[in-house]
Structure formats: C-alpha cells, structure tokens
C-alpha cells in the first residue's frame, strides 16, 4: 500500500498547480492526470470521491458562466455574442448591471476561472479516492487525536446518514407516500436523525468500552501551552496556505506565514506527542514511490507558482485581445512528471486481482 500522506502530497501539489494557472489547456491536463491516477490506482471498493468532486466543479463552471452572462464580470471585450435587454436599476445601484451586451471574452474568462476551481477540486477528490482520509488520520499526531476522532466519526456517519435516508424513503413509499417533495423530505428528518443518533451512541459505547480516551492526566500548564501553540500554529498554517493558493492576496502573506505556522504547529505536536500512550499498528512504510509522488507534487506546485509569479507566457489565458493559448513547456513537463510517477506505484492488490480475473475470463 502506498503511504496515504504521499497521495495527499501529490494531490495537493497538483491542486496548488491548478490554482495558479488560467490556461485551459493546462487545466484540462491537470484533470486528466488526476483522473488517470484514479482510474489506475483506486482500490476496488474504495470511496469514489473523484466523480462527485468533478461534478461540483462543473457546477461551479456553469454557475460562474451564468453569473457572467447575467451580471457581467468586469471583463470588457469587443466580440459581442448577444446583447441582452438591460434591466433599469435605481441610481444608488450604479455599480451593478443586469443584462446588457455579453462578450465572448467575459464568458471565456468566467469559464476558465470556474475551470480552475473545478480542476483544484478534482485533484482533492482524486487524493480522497486514492487514500481514504481515515487512513490519513492514522498519521495525525496525538495532539490532534480528539479532533481527528471527531472527523472520523463525521466521515463514518455522513455516508450512513445518506444510506439511512434512502431506506427511510423506501419505507415512506411502503406506507403509500411518494417519498418526494419538500413536505415528504421534512417527514424524513426525524426518523433519519433519530436513527443516526442511535447509531452514533452505539459507536460511542463501542469506542468507550474499547479504551478510547485512556490518556493520562496532563498538568494544566503543559496543556495550556500545547493548546495555544496548536491554535496559533494552525491559524498561521491556514493563512499561509490561503496566501499561497490564491494569488490575489499577494506575496507577503504566503510563504513566511506558512513556515512560521508550520513551525509553531510542529512544536505543539512534539509537546503533545511526549505524553502519548497510544501506539501505532503497522504504519505504511515510506519508500521510493512515496518520495517520487511527494516530490512530483511539490515540483508541479513549485513550477506553477514560479511561472505564475514571474508571468511566463501561457500561464494565464489572454482574453483581451483574445488569443489561442500556448502551452508553457516547463509547466507541461511538470504535469508529465506527475503522470509518470503513477507508473512507479504498485497496482492495489484487489484491483490487480479483479483485472487478472477479467483478463482470464476474456
């Protein structure tokens, strides 16, 4: 099994890359690379998170284009596709317009902006499908254990809630209702929540009787210090990541904040880990393929961030005047590296077995 942290490093690296370009060719390539990895390396029976994330992304594209058509997005342009009737607005809404001419440039800019979000989401979805977040959480350090457990329980119960909702809907139909429409939906809420709550209690009872939370008593000062370090560190890390991922915020917030945040968070983790009583079962080893995945992700992110920062030709879609985007070679090469490292990872065992069965049957 590939270390889950490696898949997530690879996925987040690709996502960072996608966030730093508006070249549709590059964005399509990013989605193709992520999709190929899911196709080739997703274990049979693993959650298929790629598809729903991709759908959400496509919905975002559609939404942005619709908004641009109706409200405009500040991108001018000369190629008018259609001139919508303009809605007269009172003078105090001067900044807003509804309707009016729709230019090809503004629609394209909106579409590409949406695509950037879609590609980023697709990469996160791919990481989700390739390494379940539950496996990732096993590597969460002791200080984050409680938060981690809360996330695990949430992750377990979201699908169960959906499943239970399906069964309750079937039961509604067994009582002669259609099970559709808002009133019916309201009727489902109580039984579904009650059922899920009951299951959560059962899970909690099971965790309690299996020794969850047998942490030793910590002294007050150490706990305070740990908590403050963790809070400040996490805030710093988030701010830094935000600065890095969204180029509009500007450079000063990015890297230095991230480094400081990570350092603080690490200190709190070390402090917490010293009091750790839990032990770990069969950690996945970190070997060459893991290094390759993590480095490829980092390389892609690096190339795109630098390229975006220093304005390489082709990193951004040129919309006024409109021009066919060229493909920046270095960026394309980074994506090719991301694609080729997939070949270094082993095919998950049950996927391999399923393929062998299909091959022998054919």
């Amino acid at each position, binding site marked *: 099994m590939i270390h889950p942290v490696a898949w997530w490093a690879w996925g987040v690296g690709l996502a960072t890359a996608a966030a730093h370009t508006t070249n549709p060719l590059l964005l399509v390539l990013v989605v193709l690379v992520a999709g190929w990895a899911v196709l080739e390396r997703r274990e049979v*029976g693993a959650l298929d998170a790629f598809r729903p994330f991709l759908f959400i992304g496509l919905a975002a594209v559609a939404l942005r284009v619709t908004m641009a058509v109706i409200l405009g997005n500040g991108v001018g342009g000369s190629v008018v596709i259609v001139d919508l009737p303009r809605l007269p607005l009172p003078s105090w809404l001067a900044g807003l317009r509804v309707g009016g001419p729709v230019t090809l440039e503004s629609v394209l800019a909106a579409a590409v902006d949406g695509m950037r979000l879609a590609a980023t989401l697709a990469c996160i979805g791919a990481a989700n499908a390739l390494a*379940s977040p*539950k*496996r990732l959480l*096993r590597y969460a350090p002791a200080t984050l254990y409680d938060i981690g457990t809360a996330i*695990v329980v949430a992750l*377990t119960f979201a699908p169960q809630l959906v499943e239970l909702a399906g*069964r*309750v809907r*079937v*039961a509604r*139909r*067994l*009582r*002669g*209702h*259609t*099970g559709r429409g808002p009133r019916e939906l309201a*009727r489902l809420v*109580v*039984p579904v929540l*009650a*059922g899920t709550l009951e*299951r959560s209690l*059962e*899970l*909690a*009872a*099971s*965790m*309690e*009787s*299996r*020794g*969850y*939370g*047998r942490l030793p008593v910590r002294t007050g000062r150490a706990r305070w210090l740990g908590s403050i370090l963790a809070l400040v560190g996490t805030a710093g890390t988030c701010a830094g990541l935000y600065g890095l991922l969204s180029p509009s915020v500007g450079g000063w917030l990015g890297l230095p904040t991230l480094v400081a945040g990570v350092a603080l968070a690490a200190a709190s983790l070390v402090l917490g880990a010293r009091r750790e*009583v*839990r*032990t*770990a*079962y*069969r950690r996945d080893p970190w070997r060459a393929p893991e290094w390759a995945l993590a480095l490829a992700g980092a390389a892609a992110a690096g190339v795109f961030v630098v390229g975006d920062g220093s304005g390489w030709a082709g990193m951004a879609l040129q919309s006024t005047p409109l021009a066919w985007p060229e493909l920046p070679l270095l960026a394309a090469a980074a994506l090719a590296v991301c694609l080729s490292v997939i070949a270094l990872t082993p095919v998950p*065992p*049950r996927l391999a077995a399923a393929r062998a069965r299909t091959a022998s049957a054919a």
Partner: protein
Amino acid sequence: MIDFQDVSVAYAGESRPALSGATLHVDEGELVLVVGPTGSGKSTLLRCINGLVPHFSGGLLTGQVLVGGRDTRTHRPRDLADLVGFVVQDPMSGFVTDTVEDEIAYGMEALGVDPLAMRRRVEDALDVLGLADVRDRPLRSLSGGQQQRVAIAAVIAAGPRILVLDEPTSALDPVAAEDVLAALHRLVHDLGMTVVMAEHRLERVVHHADSIILVEDGRVSALLDPAEAMVTSPVHPPVVSLGRLLHWQPLPLSVREARRRASQVRAQLAALPPPGFDDPATSARSAKRHSGSGSVPSGPSDSRPSGTGLASGECVAATTGLTVRRGQVTALTAVDLTFGSGEITAVMGRNGAGKSTLLAALVGELPRQRGRVTVLGLDPAGLEPQARCAAVGLVPQDPDLLLYADSTGAECRSADADFGCDPGTTAALLTRIAGPVPPERHPRDLSEGQRLALALAIVLAGGARVLLLDEPTRGLDYQAKARLVEVLRELAAEGHTVVLATHDVELVAEVAHRVVVLADGEVVTDGPARQVIAGSPAFAPQVAKIMHPIPYLTVDDVCRALTPAS
C-alpha cells in the same frame, strides 16, 4: 471474576427499576447465558459488567459490581477495556475503522500495546476466529457472520479475560451462527476466557452454556445449572419443550442428548402413519379448500416444481426470469417463482443469498435487469404508491423504519389517514395482532414484538393481499414468536399470501407451507416445507434432527401424533 452484590439499576423516568437486587458470582472460564423475555433487563445486566451502566447510560446504580477486583463505580468502561471486552448487538454500528486488520488493532492502539506485541496479537486474533483470508477486506464488504467474528476478534485482541456479547447470533444464518459459537467455545475451552452472553435463539446456544442466569422483570436469578434452569424457564428451545412433553429427567439440552433418549419414541412414531395428513402447518389451508395439496407427496423432492402450493390456490404473485443487479453483484439470477393465495412461503439461504433483494423486487422497489414481477396481475413498480400498498406490503427488517409518530395512537391514526381507511382501522388491527397496547406509549418504547405488530398492522391497514416480512423474528422472544405464528396462520387462512425471508428454522417449521432456498441469487430448492427442511443439515429444526428420518418438524407434530385422536 464477576461479582454482583445486591445491584439495582433505575433509569430516570421509569416507574420500575430495570434491575433489582441482583446478586451473583461468575467464576473464571465459565460460559454464562443470560436468558429472559425482551425488555426484562438482560442488556442492562450485560452493560453493568463493563461499567457502561451507569457511566455511559446514566441512571442510578446501587449495590456493588466487582470485575476482576475492580469496582465499576470507580472504573469507567475505558479503564476496564483491558479486562472486559464488550461486543454490541449490531457489529457494523460498533466498528470504528474501515478494514479488518485496522479494526482489530484499534483497541490495542488505544491501550498503548507495544507495536511488536500488537503485530503478533493481531495475527493470533485473525487465526483464532478464522479471519486470515479476509484480513485486508473493507468491513462493509463482509458477510454478517464475518462481521460478527471481526467484532469478537477486535475485542479479544486487546487481551481481556472477560467477553460480554449481546445477541451475537440473532442476525446470522444457522451456519454462520455455528461458526461464531464454535469460536466462542474455543475461547472458553482453550484460553479459559469468561464469556457472558444474552441470546434469544436458545436452540443455538443453550447446550454450549455452563450455567444460566434467568432474568424476568428485572429480577435476576443466581447462576443455575442449564438443565435445571430449563425446567422452569419461561423461554426455552424446542428440544426442552419436547423433553418436558415426554417427561425426560434430566432435561436434554442438545440434539445429541435428546436423540439418545428418543429411540423409543422414534420407534413408536415410525409405527404411526407419516405426519402431514393432518399437518398443523397446512391445516388452515386444507380446512379452507382441501384438495390434498398440503399432504406430503412420497417420492424425492423435485428441485423445481413450479409453485407446489398452487394446485388449489390462485396465483397471486409471480416472478418470471427475474434478474436484479446491486452495484457490481448480480443479486438474483433468472428467478421464476409463483405465490398462491393462502400460502405461507419461507425464503431461506445464507446471509447475502438474495432474500431481501427478492422481497424488495416483489414490492417493486428495485430496478430490474431482466424479467417480470406481477402482483394481482400488475407490475408493482409501475403502480402509484397507494395502489401498490393495496396489493403488496413489506414489513422491513427494521420495523422502526415504518414508524414516525411520537405515540402508538398517533401512529395508528396517521396510518389510517395515509391509506384513507376508516379511523380506528389500524388500532383495531393492532389490538387483534398484539392484544391491548397502550396508545400513549412511544413506538420506540414498545417491546420488539409490539413494534413488529404495529408495523404489520400498518401494512395490513393498506389492504395488502400479499404480505412480505423480512427477518420478522429478529429480537423476538418465544412468546412473541408464538403470537406471530398464530397471526400469520390466521392471515393465510383469510387468503393472504405471506412470504417470509428468514434464518429462523424453528419459525419456518411452525408456520411455512413451502420453502424456497436461495444460494447466490439462484433458486436451488423449492418445495413443501416438510420435505425441504426435514432432511437438510443446515435448515432442519431441532425436532426434525431428533426424529430423523421420520419427518416430524415441531413439538406440536409429535404431541398430536402421540395423543390419540379424540
């Protein structure tokens, strides 16, 4: 190992204590069975052992519970985790992780077991419960029996000396249940663990027990010898009923013991005409329109007679070439079945053989790949829900799914409104099925039997001619089951078609006219109940095993044959 001293438990808002004055002592290495009707306090007793009562449940506990020398008043369940392993009723809802190995390691990680020791103990647990070949499978993909064994492995890997289980075999088919019980037997006999479990299906477990605790209305007996306990126990398996009927002393608890005692009775019965001419299971039908179809044809069972009970009854529901896929798996393959009016059919087979899928397809809830389903000449999938309810009704495995209101009375009224029938129809049906039920009681506070009765009453209020019941006896005690049997017979006598999906061979022996056995989505056997189950090693009820090769299925059969007709 476990000491209860005058333990009483009272929950807030309850008039009666859930447990009163329990004093008992369990020695190391014993397998103790807790026996009692539903709602008698069995679960409370079990949860006292590892401190879930009162630490987790709330309520007031008086007296003292000592487990391995630790007082549960000062030790929380998590502090007892290295001493007591607790397996909850539905293993799936107790799983914390995704895969078998991770689940087994989870408890040890929490206890801080050294990684090397942990590695060894995971392997041991996999071997002891026979799970080595599914070690890296996702938990959701396992069968019910495997899930139950994973739950046990996950608990014993942490190295407790005491194992507490709440109904470990209720949801399992007979063979999977045997696997789980064999594993428990090994834990007690090879490793000297102390096991305390509650179970309704006594016929499966009573002969494994070293001693029995009887619980009734919160009153707890001391540890009793199983044979002595069974003399007075209000709930008891068929083998005990038979022993009581024939005045055997001491009472046999296993089929083996009973078979040895029964040689004389068998000789006596062999001299009588074979059972079935006056078959209790078919008498309701034969009384209605007798044509000899209820009697057992002599001759070997044909594997595919089309609807054995149909000779006399009109065909009410049918499937032709029915193929259903669920995700990647083909759940049903080319199933041809017909169901006649007044006929009770039991659908049996392993966990995951396609029983529930068949019922869901009959009620028109699943998309079909191929084939047709007709109920009263119509396709249920194409009907409006209201019209469909008038034709076919399903009581799901978890009857709670059908219940939404906050009181039984309101539930009945809303069902009347749902189906547009006269006010009071559902309430009247409920009273007929379950006797008086307090209408102000919340449905979730009813006993399992009453909840099932309520769900059944709602489905009947819709006017369904065809009644489908998915695992109706899960969690029912013997009294509730006996009542269910009566109700089903009455419904069949009125001309309803009843289809049961069940693992409960004793229920099938009591009530079914016909048995359909599914395996991997295909019909492997379809024939009269007596023929199909009497000779089957997996599906034979206890009396059939004792009387083999004479095809008697139930204690009633034997009783009727031995008492001269008056």
